């Protein structure tokens, strides 16, 4: 197969393209599917493709056109040549303002080979799932384990030639809890690099306890406006809104109107976020030394104490915004909170730990989600509730949000352990007295 990659590079070099990028991506994966404790199916995969993009300089370099394709690694020489010629033609119709591709720059602490033993990682997940403390009334309904070793060799016409090998894993679980003939389920999807058995057992044990509580819920009261506390991975959506609005693509396309130096939470008395793109987080599935375009990944502060500091993003949009040495970030860390988790749970508040789906619109900042399990903390009582929904806009809620100084990691995000949004609209299904 090496021969087909070498042939592809040679064809790109002689294609007439003014510039090109190519990635040889090979994934070796093992998958295991369980219904209760029984194996539903085992699957193995070995998939290889070439991701190719060719560029044409147009009108004396005023514009740069590009076209991309996934070329099968088993394509014949004739087919590959035809596809590249087709891309070169298509690139001429796509007139974008000129920019240049990444030059070769050595990444800090570049590791070209990481441990990615799919058998050992799979064994870790299998062992962890057997160690989850199930009971007669709370257990695992079904699980799906996905473990991959990904080998990515990236080259471009400017001289970049880097190879990285890394693990990527995913675990989907459904937890059941039952009582007096009634059964409920909770859904979880975890991403990680390899398997952290301790983390898997801890997260699933927490989910089992939520299952117990969901059986004892009462309808969510129609609160009108209430403070809402987030302490599970749904909070990533909140911080992702800040991150997206600092991406060069969103700024250039007009989706984000945030300017460097702007106070992005101006007008309130809440905690000010500090958001950093970080090169590595423990066991993140996004720990690579280079981004998908061959730029070295490094630590970069995007927002400092609520003030926009640096945009980040792809080579094209970064150059349009005149950014130096930017990159496509994969890991993020959010800090800046002043309170403890306990302080943030004080007073009347609705702590939502299970949504059917929680989303924050990247353009409008509108947030919405249906409540499947929450705790209504009021007058010293902590009452499990379900049903109804929350809505609001991050444009307003960001001004007064509070969050904990202690953090918690969800794959490629390390975010505050607890986040409290004030005056969120809560559409309950039970009238309050």
């Amino acid at each position, binding site marked *: 197969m090496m021969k087909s990659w070498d042939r592809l590079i040679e064809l790109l070099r002689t294609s007439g393209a003014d510039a090109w990028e190519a990635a040889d991506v090979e994934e070796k994966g093992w998958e295991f599917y369980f219904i209760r404790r029984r194996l539903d199916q085992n699957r193995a995969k070995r998939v290889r493709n070439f991701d190719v993009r060719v560029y044409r300089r147009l009108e004396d370099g005023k514009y740069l056109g590009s076209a991309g394709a996934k070329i099968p690694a088993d394509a014949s020489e004739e087919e590959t040549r035809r596809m590249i010629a087709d891309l070169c033609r298509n690139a001429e119709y796509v007139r974008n303002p000129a920019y240049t591709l990444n030059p070769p720059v050595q990444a800090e602490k570049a590791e070209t080979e990481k441990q990615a033993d799919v058998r050992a990682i799979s064994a870790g997940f299998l062992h962890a799932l057997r160690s989850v403390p199930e009971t007669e009334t709370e257990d695992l309904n079904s699980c799906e384990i996905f473990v991959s070793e990904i080998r990515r060799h990236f080259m471009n016409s400017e001289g970049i030639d880097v190879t990285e090998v890394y693990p990527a894993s995913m675990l989907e679980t459904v937890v059941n809890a039952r009582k007096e003939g009634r059964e409920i389920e909770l859904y979880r999807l975890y991403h990680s690099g390899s398997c952290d058995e301790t983390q898997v057992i801890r997260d699933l044990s927490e989910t089992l306890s939520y299952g117990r509580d969901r059986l004892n819920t009462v309808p969510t009261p129609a609160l009108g406006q209430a403070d809402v506390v987030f302490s599970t991975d749904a909070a990533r959506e909140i911080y992702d809104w800040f991150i997206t609005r600092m991406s060069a693509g969103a700024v250039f396309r007009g989706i984000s109107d945030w300017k460097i130096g702007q106070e992005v939470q101006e007008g309130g008395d809440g905690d000010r976020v500090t958001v950093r793109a970080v090169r590595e987080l423990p066991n993140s599935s996004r720990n690579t030394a280079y981004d998908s375009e061959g730029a070295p990944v490094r630590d970069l502060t995007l927002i400092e104490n609520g003030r926009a500091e640096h945009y980040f993003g792809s080579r*094209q949009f970064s150059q349009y915004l005149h950014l130096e040495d930017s990159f496509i970030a994969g890991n993020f860390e959010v800090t800046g909170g002043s309170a403890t988790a306990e302080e943030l749970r004080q007073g009347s508040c609705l702590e939502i730990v299970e949504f059917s789906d929680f989303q924050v619109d990247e353009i409008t900042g509108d947030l919405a989600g249906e409540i499947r399990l929450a705790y209504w903390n009021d007058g010293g009582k902590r009452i499990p509730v379900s049903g109804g929904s929350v809505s609001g806009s991050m444009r307003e809620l960001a001004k007064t949000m509070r969050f904990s100084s202690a953090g918690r990691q969800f794959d490629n995000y390390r975010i505050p352990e607890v986040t409290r949004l004030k005056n969120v609209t809560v559409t309950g299904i039970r009238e309050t007295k």
Partner: protein
Amino acid sequence: MKAPFSPYLNELAPGLKKLIGLLRERYDYVSVLSTDSVGFQVRISQRAKSVTRETMTTERGTVVRVYRDGLYSEAAFTGFDPENAEAFCREITEELDAQLELLRETGTQPYETGILPDEERRIFVEMETERLPETEDMAALVTRLSEISDEGVRTGENLIDCILRASSTHICKLFLTERQDLRQSYVYSEGGIAALASRDGRTEMAYTSVSGRCGPELFDSLRDKLPEALRIAEDLLRSERVEPGEYDVITSPEVTGLIAHEAFGHGVEMDMFVKGRALGAEYIGKRVGSDLVTMHEGALCAVDVASYAFDDEGTPAGDVTEIENGILRTGICDALSALRLGTVPTGNGKRENFAHKVYTRMTNTVFDSGKNTLEEMIASIQKGYLLQGMQSGMEDPKHWGIQCIIDRGYEIADGKLTGKVVSPLVMTGYVPDLLNSVSMVSGDRETFGSGGCGKGHKEWVKVSDGGPYLKAKVRLG
């Protein structure tokens, strides 16, 4: 013209048949699915343009399914060499054996399943299309889309950008067993206009879309959707928040489709019955909606992006009546779940692509039409909303909850549209309550196939859904 079947797959077929023969020496059942699907996606905006020869469903690869001792296993790979079937047979068995060794070490037992039947069957289908994505004049398409984008920002008030998307895919799939040889080729396309508008510090995105089981000729009429996109953008910019509460509403066909999909689309995927994850299993033959509610699901019940000839397990396409006059009749089922449940597969076994597992998945999910007119329905409402446009939805088959994020609600007061718009809307509730509240159904219907459907939060496939206008009572927030 007919969409021609892939010459690449025709060349692979003899080698794949040899591979099946070799694997049958070790396994009791062997099937192979090979895919060779090509396409393009064009995205044009005022600020950036892109062309790729890749869509959500372009792929080339092979997956082998084998069965022995009550267990099904699969191996997916690229680069099959028809001259070297022996080497691929060796690699597949070694890899699967290595997995089984690990499973033995952990004391894992299989979920015992019977063997799939393998009856003689031949299908060769090349469906009609006017044009093919692989030979489309991309220069002309880019020019046409650019002109629409230019017209959008020129004529639309408050527009920052007008983004055009056009995607077309030529699907070719080959399914083989010892006794079956199924080959299908068809083209589907989808496109849309997104109008990005901003006024007084408020930014909104308005969407309109088109889709069909057809070629890039679909985009010849995309310009017709521009006025609608511009109007929606203006509506969103002047929209207000809804007062949370329960309302009489009329759902437009797009919102009706979202309800069909999230309520009793996912709710009767029968692989969830096997896992005990769907409440629907206990309600077969029971009332789940009003007499006016009838719902169909299947690749044959509409012509849109998911209207294939056979599914990814070789089961011919079907048309299932899921709900008939409010009574839940049956669900949809992939082949392995059908074996486990003692029923028949319905042609709904689908993969995200060759490298992914089969699950029970939707194709076209559509409410049947009724006899009312939209005007009658509006006139019947004292206070409520006409709901239009969808943003997202989330299924809950275990508890029959429903969450739909609706783009816009147009206020109705005293039987008339007032011109007031609310946005966005979170529609939540209990599925049978919602379907039992359906009191009027319009005589027309429409399907929508733009976008993708996930199972949980992964496994994305193409589906369409739709229906007529429905009058119902829902909770909005």
